[in-house]
């Protein structure tokens, strides 16, 4: 697809424009706060303080960010191949099965460092399986991936309710959840990482899967920009017909891309299941799959952008909880609005502020050229 817009310097493209979009999204969110009859600046103060005010708060912020790095990467990988994987929510949910099975099987006999690699493989496997079918249907039968992944989100939700109420629930228990895992199913906290900076993690469930998320981000960077497969994916994303001419097997790339994307979404399940609750509960994903869309859009599908974008959403989730606590008329649903506004302004309306910014740069460029000719 050709863009009818002039090319801008990198820092404008990847720095200024996303920041302008983000600022507008927050401005509108501020208006909503005003509409509710509260002070937006006070809300902003509670947001920042709630996210960074104490070591424990920072721990929570990074805990949420871990989740969003995984789902953001999942969406981004698919974006590079021109696919819109809206099914991160379902893939993460089903990925939980892999984590739960590994933990239920080995948690009482093995230490965490044996269970963890198995849980990683399990979560990625189940997430990839759940993305395989939509990918295969797109590649072979031409079914639109957006629609099938939406459908698979709902199917996943029904499947998991069935599994958690009938199959994975311990006998005699009423609650739709697995049993609580023993020591082997619990990931160690990263308290030492925060204590380097003199911070105390407290009760925050900031755990080792954060490091896995960073490793995954690096792996995605290598995959997309340093491997043949990544090159083929990007080629297909830019121009499917060029990819076909170049002899790239389209259906193979679609299926592989979707499975990588689903695997990354599935690995998100490690963080809440093994890192916080130590059991699998209903709805443990809590919309993180959809946050991934906002994170990938904000981060321009680049791991270097996704990590800060994920931390930004971590700030929103943790700081948002603080706002809800301090200002009773603003509940946590405020986060959902901000998330929607970010998706709207950084995604659908990303070109709204581009023409004026481009014009400003064109004018500056002309003036610079004029100065140069005068000097010569």
């Amino acid at each position, binding site marked *: 697809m050709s863009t009818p817009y002039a090319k801008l310097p990198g820092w404008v493209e990847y720095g200024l424009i996303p920041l302008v979009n983000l600022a507008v999204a927050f401005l509108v969110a501020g208006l909503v706060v005003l509409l509710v009859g509260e002070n937006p600046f006070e809300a902003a103060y509670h947001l920042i303080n709630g996210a960074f005010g104490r070591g424990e708060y920072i721990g929570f912020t990074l805990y949420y960010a871990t989740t969003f790095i995984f789902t953001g990467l999942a969406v981004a990988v698919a974006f590079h191949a021109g696919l819109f994987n809206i099914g991160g929510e379902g893939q993460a949910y089903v990925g939980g099965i892999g984590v739960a099975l590994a933990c239920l099987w080995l948690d009482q006999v093995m230490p965490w460092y044996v269970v963890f690699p198995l849980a990683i493989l399990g979560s990625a496997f189940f997430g990839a399986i759940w993305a395989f079918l939509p990918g295969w249907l797109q590649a072979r039968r031409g079914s639109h991936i957006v629609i099938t992944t939406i459908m698979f989100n709902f199917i996943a939700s029904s499947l998991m309710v069935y599994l958690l109420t009938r199959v994975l629930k311990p006998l005699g228990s009423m609650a739709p959840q697995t049993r609580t895992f023993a020591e082997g199913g619990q990931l160690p906290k990263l308290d030492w990482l925060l204590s380097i900076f003199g911070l105390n993690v407290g009760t925050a469930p900031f755990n080792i899967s954060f490091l896995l998320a960073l490793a995954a981000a690096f792996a995605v960077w290598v995959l997309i920009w340093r491997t043949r497969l990544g090159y083929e994916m990007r080629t297909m994303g830019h121009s499917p017909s060029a990819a076909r001419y170049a002899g790239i097997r389209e259906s193979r790339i679609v299926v592989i891309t979707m499975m990588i994307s689903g695997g990354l979404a599935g690995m998100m399940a490690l963080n809440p299941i093994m890192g916080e609750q130590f059991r699998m509960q209903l709805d443990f994903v809590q919309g993180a799959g959809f946050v991934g869309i906002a994170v990938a859009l904000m981060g321009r599908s680049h791991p270097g952008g996704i990590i800060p974008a994920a931390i930004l959403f971590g700030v929103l989730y943790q700081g948002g909880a603080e706002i809800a606590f301090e200002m009773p008329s603003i509940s946590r649903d405020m986060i959902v*609005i901000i998330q929607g506004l970010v998706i709207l302004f950084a995604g659908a309306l990303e070109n709204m502020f581009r023409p004026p910014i481009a014009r400003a740069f064109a004018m500056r460029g002309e003036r610079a050229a004029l100065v140069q000719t005068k000097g010569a």
Partner: protein
Amino acid sequence: MDFFHVLVVLLESTIRVSVPLVFAALAGLFTERAGVFDISLEGKMLGAAFAAGAAAAVSQSVWVGLVAAILVSVLLSLVHGYASITQRGNQIVSGVAINFIVAGATVILGEAWFRQGGRTPALVEGARFQVVNFPGADAIRDVPVLGPVYADLLSGHFLLTYLAFAMVPISWWILFRTRFGLRLRAVGENPGAVDTAGISVIWLRYRAVICCGILCGFAGAYLSLAMTAGFVKGMTAGKGYIALAALIFAKWRPVNVMFACLLFGFLDALAIRLQGAPLPLIGQVPVQFMQALPYILTVILLAGFIGKAIPPKAGGVPYVKER
């Protein structure tokens, strides 16, 4: 006649749950036929339901509620239109954004204005739709076969229910028998040709998006003014997505849309009715399977195993006029 009685009750609840689906799926039909994909049916319906509940509670008038629902829904449609038609943004992304904004905003505003945990106050008579009873419905109720069919199946629904089913032939007529409809379908297949004929692609698509907004407004108003007395947070509960599935299942045709909605509505009604009770021959079917069935059926259809669903050709592609 016990089986017959059960069937009538089942079909009656099928009609009741199908109404919002019919409105929303027809709404989607208008935009998607014009080449604008819309996954924000859910959000528009939810926003409309909230506006209807809030306005009817404050004004004590069902009609004010209905107008508010349509206004809010059209406004959201215009946001989607602005992003996807004027700004040529990604239509899926815009739809996702609207769903989120509405899901959050209805709770925040509802809590701020009414302080009932995201609900709007329960509506009294006059502020909500009443059922319409056909003449003589009570008199012939005891007549076998014909009585229950007339009294329970045809009579005794809300005004909006009849409107929903009337909208099916009306939409067909608009889309397939008027000049506007012809152009609207053309703009979804080949906008370049429409542009060459000197007709504004942009304005046509905006009109299609407004039609979508109006119909979603009805869907939302039905939820909070007819089906229940007031707005409850998240009350659309995925109905917008089911409507989207029905639209695809119907291969973007108005009459098929009605049957697809009735089928999905029937599955819903059946799931509620059965509640895990065993079926003859099949045995016990988990409720979750029944709930997932509309989505599974749609995926199977999309896979081309039951006919082929071919979307409008220019769907999802913003129109760039050559310069």
